[in-house]
C-alpha cells in the first residue's frame, strides 16, 4: 500500500519533470533514468539469480552497434533495429551462459569470463570495418523538426519520456519476475545452488534464462544510447569502466531489491552532477572527479550500509 503511494508520487514527479525543470536538468535526469534502467537489467542477473557480470557493457555495445549500424548502413528503422539488437545480445548471452554453466564456471571465474567477452568484443569491433572500427560510428544528426518516436529522432524531452518508459517497464518486469516462480527459483539458486537443485530446479536452465533476459533488456539501453548520443566508439562503449558504472547503482541502492537500482542511480547521478556543478562554479576543473566520487560512494555504502541504501529506508517506511 505504502509502496503503491510512493510509486505513484514518484511516477507523477517524473512525468511532470520536463514541464517544471530546466532543459539542463532534463538531460541529467535522462542519464539517471538510463542508469536506473540498465541497473535494473543487471540486477536481474546478479541481484536475483546471483550471477555476477562485470561485462554488461558488452550488451549495451552490441545493442547500440546493431541498431545503429543497421540504421546507418541500410536505413533500417530503430524499432526494427531494436529487435535485431535484442536477438544479437541474447545470442551472445546464451553462448556465454552456455559455456560458463555447462562447464561449471561460477563466482569470480564467471565474472572474469564476462569481462573477457566484453574485451574480446571490444577488440573485435575495433577492427570491424562495417561499423567504422576504432574510428567510430556516427548517426546523422538531421535538423529536428519535431519528434519522431518511431525513428528515435527528436528533442531531449522525447528521449526523456522514452527512457522513463523503459525504466518504468524494467521496474514492472522485474517486479513481475520476482513474484513469479522464476523469481523464486532465481533467488533459491542465488542462496544455495545445491539446495535449489535438490528441490527440482534445473539450475543450468534458470541461470541461462537470467543471463539472457538481463542481456536482452540491457541491449535495449544500448539502442537508446546510440540514438541519443549519435556516436559510438568501441573503446568507450565496451570498456570495463562502463560495465562498472552499470553495477554501481544497484549495489549502492540495494542488490536484489526493486527500488535499489532506481534509488542508486538517482543518488549517484544527481550527487555526481551536483558535485561537478559545484566544482566548476568554483572555477575548477578536476579530471576523473566523477570516478573518485563513485569510489567514495561505494566505499561509504559498503562500510556502513552493506545491503545498500534502500533496505534501511524500506524498513523506516515500513514497506
Amino acid at each position, binding site marked *: 500500500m505504502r509502496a503503491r503511494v510512493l510509486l505513484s508520487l514518484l511516477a507523477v514527479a517524473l512525468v511532470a519533470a520536463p514541464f517544471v525543470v530546466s532543459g539542463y536538468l532534463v538531460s541529467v535526469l535522462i542519464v539517471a533514468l538510463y542508469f536506473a534502467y540498465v541497473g535494473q537489467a543487471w540486477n536481474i542477473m546478479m541481484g536475483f539469480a546471483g550471477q555476477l557480470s562485470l561485462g554488461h557493457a558488452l550488451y549495451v555495445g552490441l545493442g547500440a552497434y546493431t541498431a545503429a549500424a543497421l540504421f546507418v548502413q541500410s536505413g533500417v528503422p530503430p524499432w526494427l533495429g531494436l529487435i535485431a539488437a535484442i536477438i544479437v545480445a541474447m545470442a551472445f548471452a546464451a553462448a556465454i551462459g552456455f559455456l560458463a554453466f555447462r562447464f561449471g564456471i561460477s563466482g569470480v571465474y564467471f565474472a572474469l569470463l564476462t569481462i573477457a567477452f566484453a574485451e574480446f568484443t571490444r577488440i573485435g569491433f575495433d577492427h570491424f570495418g562495417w561499423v567504422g572500427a576504432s574510428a567510430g560510428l556516427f548517426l546523422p544528426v538531421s535538423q529536428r523538426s519535431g519528434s519522431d518516436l518511431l525513428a528515435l529522432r527528436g528533442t531531449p524531452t522525447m528521449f526523456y519520456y522514452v527512457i522513463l518508459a523503459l525504466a518504468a517497464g524494467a521496474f514492472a518486469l522485474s517486479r513481475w519476475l520476482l513474484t513469479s516462480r522464476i523469481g*523464486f527459483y532465481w533467488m533459491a539458486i542465488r542462496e544455495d545452488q545445491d539446495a535449489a537443485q535438490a528441490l527440482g530446479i534445473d539450475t543450468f536452465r534458470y541461470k541461462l534464462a537470467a543471463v539472457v533476459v538481463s542481456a536482452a533488456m540491457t541491449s535495449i539501453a544500448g539502442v537508446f544510447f546510440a540514438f541519443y548520443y549519435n556516436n559510438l566508439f568501441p573503446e568507450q562503449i565496451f570498456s570495463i569502466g562502463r560495465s562498472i558504472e552499470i553495477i554501481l547503482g544497484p549495489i549502492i541502492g540495494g542488490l536484489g531489491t526493486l527500488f535499489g537500482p532506481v534509488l542508486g542511480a538517482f543518488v549517484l547521478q544527481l550527487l555526481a552532477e551536483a558535485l561537478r556543478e559545484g566544482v566548476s562554479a568554483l572555477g575548477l576543473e578536476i579530471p576523473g572527479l566523477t570516478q573518485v566520487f563513485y569510489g567514495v560512494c561505494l566505499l561509504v555504502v559498503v562500510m556502513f550500509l552493506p545491503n545498500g541504501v534502500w533496505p534501511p529506508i524500506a524498513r523506516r517506511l515500513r514497506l
Partner: protein
Amino acid sequence: MTALLAVEGISKRFRGLKAVDDVSFTVPKGGIVALIGPNGAGKTTTFNLIAGVYAPDTGRIVLDGEDITSLRPDRACHAGIGRTFQIVKPFGAMTVLENVVVGALRRSADVAAARSRAAELLERVGLADKAAMPAQGLTLPEKKRLETARALATEPKILLLDEVMAGLRPTEIDRMVETFRALNRETGIAILLTEHVMRAVMALSDRIVVLHHGRKICEGSPEQVARNEAVLESYLGTEAVS
C-alpha cells in the same frame, strides 16, 4: 510389501577411499528405514548417491520401478526423491515461508497456491510462527525442520532425512518422532533416515541398515540390530542405547 526404493550393489570411491562399498537395501512403500553407523561410515554418501549428487561407480538405484541411477539431483527430485542436508543449506536471505514456497513450486507454478501449501507444511513441522523471518535467523534444529518442510513441499515419494534430530533435547526428539510418524501414517510417505540419536532410530524405524567403513554389516528389525554382535562392537557399544 513391494519395494519403493531399491538400492542394488552401489559403490562410490573418493580417490582411494571406498566411501560406499557394494551396498544393497530396499525401502518398502510406506516404510521407515534407518541407515546407521559410526562417523564416516558412508551414510551421507549413500544419500548423495540416491539423490544424484554423485553417480555411483557400480550398482543401480530404482525408485518405484524407475531406474534413477546417476540422475541429476533436480531429475531425482522430479522422480520423487526429497532430501535434507546434514550440513544445512537454507536459502538464508529468503523468509522461512519463501524457502518452502520454492519447494512447493515444484508442484504448482501458481505462487499463491504454493504459499498456502507452504504455510500448511510449516504448521506441520512447527515453524508457523517463524514464517516471516529470514531463514538465516533460525537455530540449527529449526533449520533442519525447515529443510524437512522444504523437501516435503516437493511431494516426494520418499523423504531422505540426514540427521535432522541432531542437537535436539530428548523431549524435542520425541516430538519430532511423533511428527514423522504422523506424516508417514497420514500421507503414506516412505522415509529413509540417518541418525545418531538411537532413541529416535529405535522409535521410528521398521528396519535398520547398519553401515561400517562403507559396507553393510547388518540389517534387520530394531530388536535384531540391537542384539547383533558386530553392530554392538562397531557402533552401538560406543553410543548409549536408550
